[in-house]
Each structure stands twice: as C-alpha cells, then as structure tokens.
C-alpha cells in the first residue's frame, strides 16, 4: 500500500461514494451549527419536508449575535439578532439536535464549545457554516467551513459533495523564543504563504514547535489555516491530544475509549507520504508579530516598520496602498509607535483559558492606559468560570478591562461590541479586513500577550519589553 498523509487517511475513511470523475460523498461525523448561517438551511428542510438525518451528530449554539454584557439574561435587545437566536432555539427543538442555549453555562463560540464538550475527536470529519471550523483540525480531525446550502445538504444527508484537496506540509522546526506564541506562528505562516497560498490544499502542521504546543495553542494555529486559503489545517493527535480529550462529556469512555485510542494512534502521516507543497519555518526565527494592513497576510515583526507599497509587486501594490490609507498609517512608520485606543481579547482564535492566562500574566499588577477601552470576552461560559476560579478575572478587572460573557463579540462585530470609524484596535481575533470590527474601524491582529502589552502602553508594543 502506498504511504498516506494524515489527510489521505481521514479522507479515505469517510468516502461513502465515489463517482467516476472523482466527485465524492464525504460522510460527516459532526455538524456544528450557529444562528447566522443556519436559518435558511432549516427553512429549506421544512419546505422540502425533510428531517435532519443524524440529529445525534448535530450540535447547535448561538454565538455570533449574542450580546456579551450581563444584561443579556433579560433577552436580546436588537430585534434582528433576537429573531435569529430565537430561530435557532426553535430549529434545535423542532429537529431534535443537541443545543446549548444562550444562558447555559456551556454556551460559547461554537469552535470552543465543540472541543470543550468532547464532540470533536481525532480522525473525525467536522463541518460548520463558519470558516473558522478549521480550528478542530488541532485534534487531527478533518474540519472545514461550509456555506448555508451545504449546511442544508449535511443536515439532510449527513454528507458533503467534495473533491479531494492537495496535501501541504507546514513544518515549524525547533523551539520558540520567549514571548512568541501559537498566534505568532500562524500569522508568520500566512505572512510567508499569502492569503491564497493554501488555496486548494489541506495543511498538516508539524515539527517540534507544533508538538510543543498545548491543545489550546494548536487550535489557534489551525483556526487561521483558512486565512491562508487552505480548506483545512491538521495536526496529528498525540498524548497531548488524548490527555485533553479524556473525560470530556462526549468523549468515549471505558472499553470504547481504549478502542478509540487504538485507532487514533494510527492517525499520522506515513514516512515518505507525498506532499504537493512544503513550507518550513524555523521556530527560533519567529518574532512576536502584528498586522499592519487589511489582509491577514500583511504581517511583520513588531520591531519592523510599515512597508512602502512600491516595494510590492503586481496587484499587491494597489492593495497595500489602499490598506495603508485605510489604516491611517505612513510607510516607514515604526509599528511600535502606532497608538491604539481599543483592545479586544477573545474570539475562536484566542478566547481559550491559556490565552487569558497569557494576557493576565502580562497585566498582573498593571493598569491599562488612561482612556483606553479594553475588553476580554472569554470563548465560553466554562472558560469564563475557570478564569474566575483561577483569579484571572480579578487581574483583568483590576487592570481596567471589561469582563464579558461568552460570544464572538468584536471579532466580527455583529453584536453591539463594535469599533467606531477611525478607532484603532489591537485584537486577538483573526481578520483585519476593512470594516471587520465596525465600519471604518482599524484592526491590528496579534497574540493575547501582545494585546495585553498594548493595553498597558497604549501603542503596539513588543511584549518582550514587559516580560
């Protein structure tokens, strides 16, 4: 048998039918659902009189629209947001799928809730009507975002019509330097490949620096595979994975656990398996990074300066010019001189407990700069509870951060957490697109530790100066 990559193995295990032209029906083990991309899909089922084929494999939670202020227990004020969340309440009930309603302590961002509850397991296929589904690849699960028509297709058939992607290997060798995190790895990779560099590929991340990451860090890395254009990002499961999964509410137990473990241990890329593209970065070479523009590929070390658009080639010259103008920056300006007025810590990229610990470590005993708006939005109610138990919430509040309830919040600003035109935010989220955090708002992507450092100084800051 020819050697296979991890992606090849998971793919082969899930093909329910293959047509002569290579079009496959890929069986889906877990379908995660949220309120924004699902109402039209459920409506489609109703109109055709179709049930959900596998409600026991379908999990829903509202996250994009929900307010993150304490008064949300009294209901959602914005009528459109309320209608979407109520539609999900009703759809979950009518179709009999697992559901974590807005005021359940287990509610949170769908990509944080899935792993936390043990729904996401190695070797699975996982989809969700959300591009950041790539997050679940950290478990060695083939996980990717889909559109609403495909959400309906999975609800109705538990399959997707797919053609296989190509294999790409991203290896991060060696050790990371102090102050450098999983977020810096994933941004540095996108800086290297560009936002279309992964188009047509599934990425497997490997190497010592990836192996050394916790599950939280691995989820951060895989989360942004989509920003590099890849269909999915994967990391082969290992002891770190099993340790995280064991004992979670929906993880296998007893004899089932042993059987699962035996199978999971076969989930690795065989020696000599073929990759169509290989990228290698040295862990030691990665610095704490920030974005300067309006594409996640606009990444530079915090010690660098804003680039000159003329230094790019092709269509990137005009794109960079537009970005720099939108961002209100000057070519040649030191990134560490860029003043900010808002800090957002949260999102499916960096809303997990380890992220909050990293930010709190920098903030301990310090205050955010006067006039700064700073907020922490834990990724789930359980992350929030754990952070309170560990005393992190007190550190954030003492420093001057707002301590919010769980949701997507200012990552995409569908709820009331938004930037005003011209406001500049240091954000631990995943997209710095024009208007992403509010029309006219300016976003610099960075790690939680870097966001905490920026909150203290009021400008983009090299976290290593505060360590």
């Amino acid at each position, binding site marked *: 048998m020819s050697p296979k990559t991890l992606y090849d193995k998971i793919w082969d295990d899930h093909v*329910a*039918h293959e*047509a002569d*032209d290579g*079009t496959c*029906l890929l*069986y889906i*083990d877990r379908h995660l659902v949220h309120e*924004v*991309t699902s109402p*039209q899909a459920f*409506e*489609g089922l109703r109109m*055709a009189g*179709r049930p959900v084929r596998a409600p026991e*494999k379908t999990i829903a939670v509202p996250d994009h629209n929900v307010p993150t202020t304490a008064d949300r227990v009294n209901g959602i004020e914005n009528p*459109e947001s309320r*209608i979407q969340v109520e*539609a999900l309440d009703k759809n979950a009930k009518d179709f009999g799928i697992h559901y974590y309603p807005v005021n359940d302590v287990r509610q949170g961002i769908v990509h944080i809730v899935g792993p936390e509850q043990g729904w996401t*397991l190695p*070797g699975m296929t996982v989809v969700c*009507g*959300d*591009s950041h589904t790539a997050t679940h690849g950290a478990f060695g699960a083939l996980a990717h*975002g*889909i*559109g*609403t*028509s*495909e959400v*309906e*297709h999975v609800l*109705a*058939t538990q*399959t997707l*019509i797919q*053609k296989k992607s190509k294999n790409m290997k991203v290896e991060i060798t060696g050790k990371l330097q102090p102050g450098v995190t999983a977020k810096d790895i994933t941004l540095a990779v996108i800086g290297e490949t560009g*936002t*279309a560099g992964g*188009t047509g590929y599934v990425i497997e991340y490997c190497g010592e620096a990836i192996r050394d990451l916790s599950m939280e860090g691995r989820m951060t890395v895989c989360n942004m595979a989509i920003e590099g*254009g*890849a*269909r999915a990002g994967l990391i082969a499961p290992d002891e770190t994975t099993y340790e995280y999964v064991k004992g979670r509410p929906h993880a296998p137990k007893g004899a*089932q*656990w042993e*059987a*699962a473990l035996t199978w999971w241990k076969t989930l690795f890329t065989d020696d000599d398996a073929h990759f169509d593209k290989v990228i290698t970065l040295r862990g030691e070479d990665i610095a704490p990074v920030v974005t300067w523009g309006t*594409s996640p*590929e606009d990444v530079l070390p915090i010690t660098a300066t804003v680039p000159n658009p003329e230094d790019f080639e092709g*269509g*990137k010259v*005009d*794109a960079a010019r537009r970005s720099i103008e939108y961002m209100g920056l000057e070519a040649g300006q030191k990134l560490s001189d860029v003043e900010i007025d808002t800090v957002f810590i949260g999102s499916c990229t960096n809303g997990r407990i380890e992220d909050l610990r990293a930010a709190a470590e920098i903030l301990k005993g310090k205050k955010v700069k006067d006039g700064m708006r700073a907020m922490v939005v834990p990724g789930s109610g359980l992350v929030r509870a754990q952070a309170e138990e560990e005393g992190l919430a007190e550190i954030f509040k003492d420093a001057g951060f707002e301590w919010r309830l769980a949701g997507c919040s200012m990552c*995409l600003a*569908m709820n009331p957490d938004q930037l005003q*035109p011209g406001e500049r935010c240091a954000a631990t989220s995943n*997209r710095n*697109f*024009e208007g992403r955090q509010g*029309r006219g708002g300016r976003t610099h992507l960075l790690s939680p530790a870097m966001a905490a450092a920026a909150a203290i100084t009021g400008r983009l800051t090299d976290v290593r100066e505060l360590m």
Partner: protein
Amino acid sequence: MEKFDKVHGVAAPMPLINIDTDMIIPKVHLKTIKRSGLGVVLFDEMRYHQHGGENEDFVLNKPAYRQTEILVAGDNFGCGSSREHAPWAIKDFGIKVVISTSFADIFFNNCFKNGILPIVVEEAHHAILMEDAHKGENARMTVHLEDQQITTSDGVVIEFSVDPHRKHCLLNGLDDIGLTMEKDHHIDKFEDHASQARPWV
C-alpha cells in the same frame, strides 16, 4: 434552481485583489433569516457613503455598469468568511458570472449552489478580459457554459475549464440534495460499516 446556459451582458472591472466576503456583504446584513433581497447591499461599504448616498466612484454605481451581469475581479476573490450571503447578494444584484485568477475555496463552492458561474482564468487571459470590462456598457461579453468559452466584445475567444459535475448541475438547474438522496443506500451502507468500525463516533 434556474438553468444556466449563456450570459451576454455588461462586464464590470474590479481589479482589487483579496476582495473578501466582508467587503461583498458586511455583517450588518447577515441578520436576515431569508436568502432574498440582498442585492441592494452588495459591496455596501464601498458602494454607499457612511451616512447614506451612493459613492459615484464605485464601479457598479457608474451608469455604464448598473446592469452588470459579469464581474471581472482581482486575485483571491471571496476570501474570508463562509457567509453564503455573499453569493446571494451577487445573484440578487443580477451578476451571474465572476471571473478571476483565483477564488477562495468556500466562496467558489457557494457560487455553484446558487446558479453563479465562477471562472478561473490564467493571468494573460485575465488581463484581456479586465481590459474589455473597462470599455463599459456597449462592450458586452458573452459567457457560454456549454462550450466553455468567453467571447470578448472584440470577438476574442477564451476557453475555460469547469468541473464536469458542477457544469452538469448548472446547465440543468439540479438540486444537490435531491441528487445525493438518490445515493441514500450508499450512505446507509457507510453508516452500518462506520458504526461497527468506530462505534464511539
């Protein structure tokens, strides 16, 4: 789904690269529970001023391009969020074909589900089509799916490739779910096998 055959219409140029789905339709318009009526907010933040009123510099607001049916766009069109509201808005505006040197994966898939044909062309052909699109409303382009050909207003013919299954579905207006349900027995068989092999799933 309505059948797709041939489009003969105005092509608009949008050379900017990395046009993301937040640009195509910002999140304020994702709160709908319907698929229809989004054409009016297509490219909202580029098309309208912050406090209302059209931005007359934006291509689709120019008199020549108000009836655009074909978009010739820069590289990596449709990157970012998976929101299908992006193709819904494009379709509702009246655009049936998007041409670029590359598309983001999810957006590309979403187009086919909504009767939109995304066409990938090589850079040299892209340059010819972009130039043609700049000529305005009298320069109509033709996209013929059956023959897999684009004909510029000057009669230059450019061939393109398209996945045969997707072509078949577009030409015949076929619903994916209906097609998959015809393979129900394969799914049943897979589930029987998987429940033995991986009972913990």
